[in-house]
Structures are given as C-alpha cells and as structure tokens.
C-alpha cells in the first residue's frame, strides 16, 4: 500500500482497513487516524509514503515506551510465573526461556504448576529433558499450590539462578481460577522475598480484542511484569498489543515465532511495526 500514492479518502480508508485487520482495534485505530486526518486536511502530508512514516511514528511512540527486556535479579533465584489463557503458548514459551537461560549458562529449574490438564506434566517434562534442565513435578491432579511450594523450596536449596513456574491455562473471567492464581503468587511470595519477580502474561498472537480483557483481568489478579506475544510466525499481526501498550502501559518483552525451543525473540517495536505494514 505504501509508496507515492496521492493522499485521498481512499488511501485513508485503506490505512484504516490495514490497522483494523491487524487487530489494532477500533478505538486505537480511530485514535491514530484522528491526528493523521487532521494533518492531511491541513495539507501537511504530501504522499502515501509520508502518511506511512507519520503512522509508524505514532505506533512507535506507543510501543517504544513499552518494550522492555526480561532481566534476572543480580542475586538469588529470579522467580518467573507464567500465566495466560488456555492454549496461548505458556508451556512452549517456558521451554524457550529455559533454553535461552541455559545458553547464557544460568542454572535453571522448571516447576510443573499445571497439575490439571491431560498430558501437561509430561509435555513440560519432555521439554525439560530436551533443554537439559530439571523439573519439579508431582502426580497429576495434585494441588498446584503444593507443587509451587515444592518448586520454590527446591529453587532456594539448589541456589538456581532462575525458576520458571508453569500454570494451567485459564480464562480470565473464571473467578475461582484467578483466585487460584493469586494463591500461587502468594505461596511464591512467602518462600522468597519479592517473588514472583516476573509474571509473564502469554498472549496468543491470533487473539482479537479479547486480548485487552485478558491483560486487564490477569493484571488485576497478579502483578504482570511483561507480555509474551506468541504465534507471530503465522499470518496474524498481533495489533492488540498497541491497545494494551496504549491503555495499560504493560511492558512487552518477548515474542514467540515458532514451535522450537529457539523460536523466541525480544520484542522489537521497529520490526513489529514494519511487519504489521507487511
């Protein structure tokens, strides 16, 4: 779409369509189109290339403040709690993170906090074995709080650098499940000062406007410190991240770009915006 086209109503409509079909959402799209349309009306944007530059600038303005990296504490185990709705990519993301930390020669421990879903513990065990890190687990059906407690104890006694806790997927509107999540965070907090130090909310990149509700309700339950946006190797653009950054200012830390343990990248606003424009 970009290039030397004349800036007319058709082009503005095309831009609006581009943003909406990228899941940017109506409110955020209109919020960006408004200043754009005003500039166009005043003749301040001479061609489509300039229009796209302007729009990219707006988007980067929203995103640059939110891009952040996942940092480990200088001392003591960093506790990372991974949360999100069903099927978003939590367990796979944990495998990727474990692999990354292992490559950085950190001592990693994983905790199988999903004791509910069929095959969940086996799935994380296979990943732990592939990456080459230990996994704390109990029998399927046991109390997730008990496993998390065990995991925290092990992390401290083994003096690991980072401990990553997997949790069962849960829809943010399920009050009892969100209460359970709060309980898991409390258990970690009682075992280690300031734990969980990182709470990563895993969002599926193919999700539409519900992502905002997920960000809001998960943040209300636990102190979300970062977002991981997964499945960006597909054709979805993940534009909901703009509304989330704009309305909530949650740090966007990582993206998932595939199913292998190496398919993890730091969130880069420039690359993200370029990809959105295709």
């Amino acid at each position: 779409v970009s290039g030397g086209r004349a800036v007319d109503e058709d082009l503005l409509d095309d831009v609006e369509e581009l943003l909406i079909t990228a899941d940017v959402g109506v409110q955020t799209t209109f919020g960006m189109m408004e200043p754009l349309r005003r500039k166009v009306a005043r003749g301040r944007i001479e061609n489509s290339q300039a229009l796209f530059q302007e729009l990219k600038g707006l988007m980067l303005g929203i995103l640059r403040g939110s891009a952040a990296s996942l940092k480990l504490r200088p001392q003591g185990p960093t506790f990372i709690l991974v949360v999100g709705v069903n099927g978003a990519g939590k367990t796979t993301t944990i495998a990727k993170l474990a692999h990354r930390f292992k490559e950085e020669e950190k001592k990693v421990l994983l905790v199988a906090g999903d004791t509910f879903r069929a095959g969940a513990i086996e799935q994380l065990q296979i990943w732990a074995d592939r990456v080459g890190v230990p996994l704390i687990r109990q029998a399927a059906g046991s109390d997730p709080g008990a496993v998390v407690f065990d995991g925290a104890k092990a992390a401290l006694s083994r003096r690991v650098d980072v401990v990553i806790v997997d949790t069962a997927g849960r829809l943010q509107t399920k009050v009892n499940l969100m209460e359970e999540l709060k309980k898991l965070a409390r258990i970690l907090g009682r075992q280690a000062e300031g734990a969980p130090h990182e709470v990563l909310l895993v969002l599926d990149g193919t999700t539409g406007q519900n992502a905002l509700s997920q960000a809001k309700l998960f943040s209300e339950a636990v102190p979300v410190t970062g977002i991981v946006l997964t499945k960006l190797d597909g054709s979805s653009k993940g534009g909901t991240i703009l509304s989330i950054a704009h309305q909530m200012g949650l740090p966007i830390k990582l993206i998932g770009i595939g199913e292998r343990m190496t398919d993890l990248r730091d969130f880069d606003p420039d690359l993200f915006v370029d990809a959105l424009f295709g």
Partner: protein
Amino acid sequence: SLSDRLDGVFRKLRGYGKLNEKNIQDAMRQVRLALLEADVHFRVVKDFVKRVQERALGAAITKSLTPGQEVVKVVYAELTDLMGSEHKGLRISSKPPTIVMLAGLQGSGKTTSAGKLAKLFSAQFPLLVACDVYRPAAVDQLKTLGKQLGIQVYDEGTEADPVDIATRAVEHAKAVGHRLVIIDTAGRLAIDEEMMAEVRRIKKRVMPHEILFVADAMSGQDAVNVAKRFNDDLEIDGVILTKMDGDARGGAALSIRAVTGKPIKYIGVGEKLDGLEAFHPTRLADRILG
C-alpha cells in the same frame, strides 16, 4: 450493547419525526463499530452492514416509534440468515465407521474437542486416533483423555507418518467394529505449506465423512484468512468454536461462516470433557451484539 448504541443514535431524533438517510447512516456506523469490536472481519462487516442498510431502508424503520429496536431486529434477522437457523450436528454415516477429522491452528482446542466428541457420541463405540506426532506428549494427552472416558485410543507413538497412522487406525476400527473414528491432528499454520499438504494427504487417504475446523472463539481478524485456507484445502464440513465459556464476543464465527459457507456445529464451553454444546445462532447473535 448494540441496543444501547442505537438508542443513543435515535434519542436525538425525538421531536424530529421521521427518520432520514443520515439517521440510518449513523445507525449503520454503530452496527459497524459493534461488529468490529466483536472481532468480525472488516470486509465481512462491510458486506453485512450493506445488507442491513438495504433491509433497514426498506423496512418500517422510518415510521417506527422505536427505530433503534427496529434496526436491532434487522441486524438479528441478517445474523441468523447468515449463521443458519438450526443446529447442524455430526452426520453419522449409514456405512460405519463414520470418520471425522479435526484440524486447525495451534492451541485452538482440537485434542480436547476430540475427547468431547467421543464422549458425546460414546454410543457409537468411538475410536480416538492420535495423529499429532509433533507436539511433546500430544499422544499422552489423547491417551489420558481416552482413559478418563473409557474410550479406545489408536496411536503409533511419534515415529510413524500421521497419514499411515490414520489409515491403519481406520482399518483397525473396521476390524474391531468401532462405528466412529475421530482423528486428532497436530496444530498447524494455514501458511505452512508442508503441514497443510499433510492434512490434505490424510484426507485423500482416509476420506473422512466429516472434517471439522476447530477455531478459538477469541480469534481476531485473521480467522477469516485461516478458515478460507483450511476450507480451500480440505473442504471442511463444519466448525467447532472453542472457549465460548470466556467473554470473547466470537465475531470470528461470523467471518468463518461468511467466507466458508459452512456451519458452526458445536461450541466448546469448558475444559472438561462434557463441555461441548450444539451451536445456536441466536445465542451467538446476542453475544456478538453485546
């Protein structure tokens, strides 16, 4: 909700008497916004609103005392026309076994839905087939579900070719007398040529009676492109829309229906294996319009 939005549009009308085209335009804008916020695809919304507008202009809207309600009625009528009016369930073949294949993106809920279908149709002596040889412990997951339900699972571990697994599973089903075969496949991207070729091969070899596209109710705008690709490649027979127990509006259902013409057959309404319901278009209409 759409009703509230439309009341907002038409409230200004009191005292102005008859509706004019501008009022209808404003109302249509509200319908458009409501649908976009519900994740209905941009183009699907455009076509849909055009039809609603034509119908609204032709209807009794201009003379009504409650034009907002009239517009809502038109939108409802258009939605149910689009989504279909009755529940379309799985068709059990007169020549058993009925072969069902599930396909869709990663994490959409295929494996869980396979278990749910097996439970729903347990009277058909179903066989679950583990054709996901890629995802760690996917076979274990399906076997665990089978155990929980007391339903047989056919698997060949993770070293065999899914096409061969499916083929041998059907042979096994016939030999043992299963009347329903439910094939779970690996999650895959619609743009992954190799993986799409795999499901095409499974279809060609096994010739399922029903191919169900499993889609997440919270899917965004891209659902339309994904559904189109799965339908082009597989000629799906229907859709299972999962995670409807959340607060996602489910507009992707409209887009998927609009682009494939295929019915939503079931909705997933929970993580447990009894969480599968027949799809009712009026309930989805309520949900999409808030």
